Each structure stands twice: as C-alpha cells, then as structure tokens.
C-alpha cells in the first residue's frame, strides 16, 4: 500500500500538468467492478448479450473510467477529502484489453477560496478520447496561522 501526503496548495500553478495515470482494463477487472458496485448489467459481463445489444462485445462501466480519473486526482491531491466536484462525458467505449490514460491540468487556482479547478481527459491506446469535458474541483483547508513568518 502506498501512503500519501497532502499536496501543498502554495506549490500549485495554473497550467501545471498532473501526473498521468495509465490503467490496463481486463475482463476480470470489469467483473470485479460489477461485484463491488452492484452494477451487473449484462452488457458488462455477457459477451453474447453485449453483441445482441449491438456492441462489439462486453464494455467497461463508464464509472470505472471515472474511478480512474478520480484516482489520478486524489493521488495528486494526496487526500481524498479535498475533491469537491468531478464530472465528465463518456465519449467512447472501453473494452477489455484497452490501456486508458488519465491526464489533467490545472485550469485555475483561487487563493481566496483555496479552490483549484482541473481539466481532465481519458484517452485509450489509440489516442481516442473515452472521457472528455472532464472537470474537477478541489478545495484546500485554510492555511494554518502558525505558518506565518515571524
């Protein structure tokens, strides 16, 4: 298990890129996600059913892709409780065998509210966007008074 420490708000700058995160999606992971989330829709689990529904085969849950984006954000923030908003559009299907990469950059930073806006996108191994219009917002706790210079 990795441990984490909270990102320093003062060191964040607009335009800064977040460390990207790549995930290899497998049939097993999709099954595991179906169990953990409760979402056992057969388009995620049953190859024959998925084809009959007009899909190329089983597809990953959109929310699995969003969970990867969530992880990229909270790995960077160093604290899961800082994330206040997350949204995105599922622009393309993710299928077993895909390698998806989450990337993001700081769109704006407000020193008064200590809020940071991040734009994010998830692409597959062909560079096609599977999640676009991604936006996240984090809020940092007020600065401690004992950090003031003497």
């Amino acid at each position: 298990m990795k441990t984490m420490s909270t990102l320093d708000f003062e060191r964040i700058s607009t335009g800064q890129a977040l460390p990207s995160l790549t995930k290899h999606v497998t049939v097993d992971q999709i099954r595991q996600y179906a169990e953990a989330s409760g979402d056992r829709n057969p388009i995620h689990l049953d190859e024959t059913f998925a084809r009959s529904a007009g899909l190329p085969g089983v597809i990953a849950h959109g929310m699995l892709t969003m969970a990867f984006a969530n992880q990229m954000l909270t790995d960077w923030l160093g604290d899961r409780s800082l994330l206040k908003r997350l949204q995105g559009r599922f622009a393309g299907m993710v299928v077993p065998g895909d390698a998806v990469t989450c990337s993001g950059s700081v769109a704006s930073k407000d020193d008064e509210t200590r809020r940071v806006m991040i734009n994010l996108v998830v692409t597959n191994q062909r560079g096609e966007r599977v999640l676009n219009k991604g936006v996240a917002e984090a809020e940092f706790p007020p600065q401690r008074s004992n950090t003031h210079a003497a």
Partner: protein
Amino acid sequence: MTDPRWVGRSYETAPYQVTQQSIRDYMTAVGDLREDGELIAPPTYAMVYGFDAYWQLWTDQEVALDVAHLVHGEQRFTFQRPVRPGDQIRTTGRLIAISNRGDMELVTFELSARDAEDRPVSDGTALFIIRKP
C-alpha cells in the same frame, strides 16, 4: 420511446451501511489502493452507496427504459463531505428529463445522498443514452 409522463418520478434507497469491507472491495476493484491512514472512500464510491437508486430506475416496469440499449453518457458529482466506515447513507434519485437527439433518447437522473443526521453527503447527475435499435 419512454413515456415523458414519468418525469418527476423518484426512488429512494434503504440506508446504505458503509463498511471497511465495502470500501476496500471498491478500492480493489478499481485498483485505487492507497491508504491515507484513516480509511476514506474514493469519492466515486458514491456509485456504490447510491447504486440501488439507479437499479430501481432501470428495473421500473412502468417506466420500462430499454436498458439493453442504455449506456452511461455523462456523470457529474459534487461531494459535500468524505465517506467513512460507519456512515449510513440514503440516496434519492429523481428522473428529471427525457428527450430525443437524433436516433438517441436521453434520460437525466438526479441524485442526492444524505447521512443518518440528514446532512448532505453528495449530489450527482447521470445522463443515460438509449440507442434506438
């Protein structure tokens, strides 16, 4: 085409009891294994404690969404507070719009999750796309 008269229908989950096991199962499934010292659920765990609201919508025989052709189009969340083991969370989902765009039907579902003291935990909006066969 889903009958637009169902717009406004709402669904409420039973209180979801958040456990260490449930959070860890979710973290393992998505591969987000980092521990903060204190166990806090990844924010997208909102999909786990709120799932029964989605399920009730998808299986509502009267609304009769064509779930075989339904895919998740967009998702938005706002998070009011972190979720920890011991939390009891109740989610209300409301069908707020049904519309058509070309050969697709768009269904908008709005969710609000609250704790045992009725304080807000998270809000969500899901847009589902039903591809017409």
